[in-house]
């Protein structure tokens, strides 16, 4: 699997946009940076497209980009009810890794990882992909054993992964507290060195700019109000800016998947839940990797600006409110402060919630539906950001060819009828 490189399609900016480079920055400084070209057009919706992607987040924009770059479908549109990347794309903790237990998961997340490695060059946009490593900590003997099983499975799939003991962890992350007397002691951990972070907004903007360059219309402030069909076939999308005729509709709307599915009378096994994150005031560099804890459901990293970025768990009830309940981050912060005593007097600057689409088996749905021309890419739950390029790549392939490729095939909606689930919940612990 490690040798299969994804088809990246047309790279760079074949449509003729001026390239971003150090030279371009110097040149534009002469004109006080007043003459930069718009990154993408503010397109008016046309009356008809070959395909319409609902949802202008990372996954939707990536889908549109790969439809154009790999499959040559350029008469397409991305419609977004708010602004680009204003949903979960701009609300996550930007962690990227591909260390999943099951073969199906390893295939898609590693596919994504390969696309991340080289994405800035593909898009001519610095997505600030930083392979600083992702270290997942075990807090109990059992968790450590489960972890080593996982590490071996991951390595069998050709993905880098290694087990670290408490002393090695202390060496790798000097600020961590490995005292065994704390509530969540560090018993060990496993590290994916190729894992890391990227700048989430840049991912949305980079895909949008590159897709726009290939002729894709990106239409913001355009809400889908209905899906028009003729019998079992999609014929178009009703939007707040009028009807758009199309034969293919790809829904990539994360937390609102059930709402859009209901417009077409489709049932999904999805529950929409708030997932929270917070950011501290900026401090000097203290953490040059990503630390995760499945037992606490905590993730922590430090942004290039110096802010500590902390992710908490999901609320246990359905919500579309884009804010979470207080006890969830409180629990996470209590554990974080014990693990990193240096954080104890840090003030938090911002706190927000995103609505994630959780699936019963914690694996996504990339699928055709009973309605011809209607496709869903959803159910990414709490771990969608890392999959952005891979998800868009295989979903574009599904839309273009009307059949899932080898990587997407296990993620059919039909698995909830056949019982062929990809149970990453049990396998990956809570955080994922």
């Amino acid at each position: 699997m490690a040798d299969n490189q994804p088809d990246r399609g047309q790279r760079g900016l074949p449509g003729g946009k001026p390239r971003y480079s150090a030279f371009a920055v110097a040149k534009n400084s002469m004109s006080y940076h007043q003459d930069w070209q718009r990154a993408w057009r503010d397109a008016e919706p046309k009356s008809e497209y070959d395909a319409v992607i609902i949802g202008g987040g990372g996954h939707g924009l990536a889908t549109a980009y790969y439809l154009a770059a790999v499959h040559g479908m350029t008469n397409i549109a991305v419609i977004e009810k708010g602004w680009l990347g204003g949903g979960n794309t701009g609300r996550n903790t930007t962690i990227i890794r591909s260390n999943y237990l099951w073969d199906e998961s390893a295939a898609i997340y590693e596919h994504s990882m390969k696309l991340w490695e080289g994405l800035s060059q593909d898009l001519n946009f610095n997505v600030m992909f930083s392979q600083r490593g992702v270290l997942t900590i075990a807090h109990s003997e059992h968790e450590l054993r489960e972890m080593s099983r996982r590490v071996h499975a991951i390595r069998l799939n050709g993905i880098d992964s290694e087990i670290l003991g408490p002393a090695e962890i202390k060496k790798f992350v000097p600020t961590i507290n490995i005292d065994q007397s704390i509530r969540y002691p560090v018993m060990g951990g496993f590290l994916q060195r190729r894992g890391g972070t990227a700048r989430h907004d840049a991912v949305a903007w980079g895909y949008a700019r590159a897709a726009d360059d290939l002729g894709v219309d990106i239409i913001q402030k355009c809400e889908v109000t209905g899906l028009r069909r003729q019998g079992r076939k999609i014929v178009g999308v009703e939007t707040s800016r009028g009807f758009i005729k199309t034969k293919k509709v790809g829904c990539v709307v994360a937390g609102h998947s059930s709402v859009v599915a209901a417009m077409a009378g489709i049932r999904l096994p999805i529950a929409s839940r708030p997932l929270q994150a917070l950011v501290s005031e900026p401090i000097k560099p203290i953490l040059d990797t990503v630390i995760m804890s499945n037992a606490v459901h905590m993730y922590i990293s430090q942004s290039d600006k110096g802010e500590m970025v902390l992710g908490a768990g999901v609320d246990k009830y359905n919500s579309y409110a884009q804010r979470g309940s207080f006890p969830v981050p409180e629990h996470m912060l209590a554990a974080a402060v014990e693990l990193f005593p240096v954080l104890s007097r840090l003030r938090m600057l911002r706190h927000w919630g995103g609505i994630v689409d959780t699936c019963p088996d914690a694996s996504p749905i990339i699928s055709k539906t009973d309605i011809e021309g209607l496709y869903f890419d959803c159910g990414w739950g709490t771990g969608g950001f890392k999959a952005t390029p891979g998800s868009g790549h295989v979903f574009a392939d599904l839309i273009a060819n009307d059949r899932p490729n080898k990587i997407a095939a296990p993620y059919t909606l039909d698995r909830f009828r056949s019982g062929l689930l990809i149970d990453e919940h049990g396998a990956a612990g809570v955080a994922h």
Partner: protein
Amino acid sequence: MMLIDCPFCGPRDETEFSCGGEAHIARPLAENKISEAEFADYLFMRDNPKGLFLERWRHSAGCRRWFNMARDTVSHEIVEIYPMGALPKTAAAKSAYSASWRRDTAAEHAAKPARTTVKNAGKARGAK
């Protein structure tokens, strides 16, 4: 943050409760008479409305008893709390009940006899 009025203990903080997800999912009795897809409606498919949602809650760190709750998933406003086995009484919650696609599923139709039994059992308890 929600203040939930437990029908047995009174108003308590949301941290004392656990949510059991969508309410009124009846297990199909004649499960071998319905198809896999129809059984999936019962087992995996979930109503996930943006707006009023009927769900089950348990006062897990209190009396540990179950009850039903009609709650708005956008504003988190609690519209009605009603007992297990019963149907909601407020107009809004009633229409949320009938608006759910689940009411038309083969799985729920296959469960209808069970529903009647539960209703009767409730009446019998009420008579005591």
